[in-house]
């Protein structure tokens, strides 16, 4: 093989520095934290945004309707503290519910623990939705 017929293939590896941001990730993260689906809406994913908003708000409302409790930050009670962090991942619904006097927690209700589960899991799922929206904004995730 002659020197001139060689084909040189240069493979460039994608590194974080070469990823082009599509939107301000901080802004996307903040709006996604405030309201479920808002980050995806900002990134132009309307269908996903509507789905996340509808399902996560429904889960939060079901949790309140079941008599679940909005947990305060109590460092003395580690599980309560972690539950509070999870619930605060849905910022605006959490604030509105607290201002409306909801989420006192009906301990004697049959569905009390179910309510807590729905409230906590809706927050944790929104944390995953938030991270997905930030990945879309930074370009780490395609589409």
């Amino acid at each position: 093989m002659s020197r001139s017929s060689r084909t040189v293939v240069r493979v460039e590896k994608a590194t974080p520095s070469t990823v082009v941001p599509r939107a301000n990730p901080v802004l996307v993260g903040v709006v996604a934290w405030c309201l479920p689906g808002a980050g995806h809406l900002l990134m132009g994913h309307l269908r996903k945004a509507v789905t996340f908003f509808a399902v996560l708000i429904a889960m939060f409302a079901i949790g309140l309707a079941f008599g679940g409790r909005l947990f305060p930050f109590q460092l003395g009670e580690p599980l309560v503290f972690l539950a509070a962090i999870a619930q605060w991942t849905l910022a605006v619904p959490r604030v509105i519910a607290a201002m409306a006097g909801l989420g006192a927690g009906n301990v004697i209700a049959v569905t009390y623990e179910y309510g807590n589960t729905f409230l906590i899991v809706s927050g944790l799922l929104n944390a995953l939705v938030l991270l997905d929206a930030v990945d879309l904004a930074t370009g780490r995730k395609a589409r």
Partner: protein
Amino acid sequence: MTTHLGVMILFAACVAIVFGTLLRDTPHDELRLAVRIFGGLVAGAYLVGWIMYITL
């Protein structure tokens, strides 16, 4: 709807929809994954429930 089964089905449906939407990009794929996750959660809970009933 305050039965264990009813609440579990409602919970599984919500979680399955979110994960299906999060992990796939086309509506068809999202629905397929959501149905699989929903089925897995309900069947798993049923199985674990029976195992606990038999063994405990």
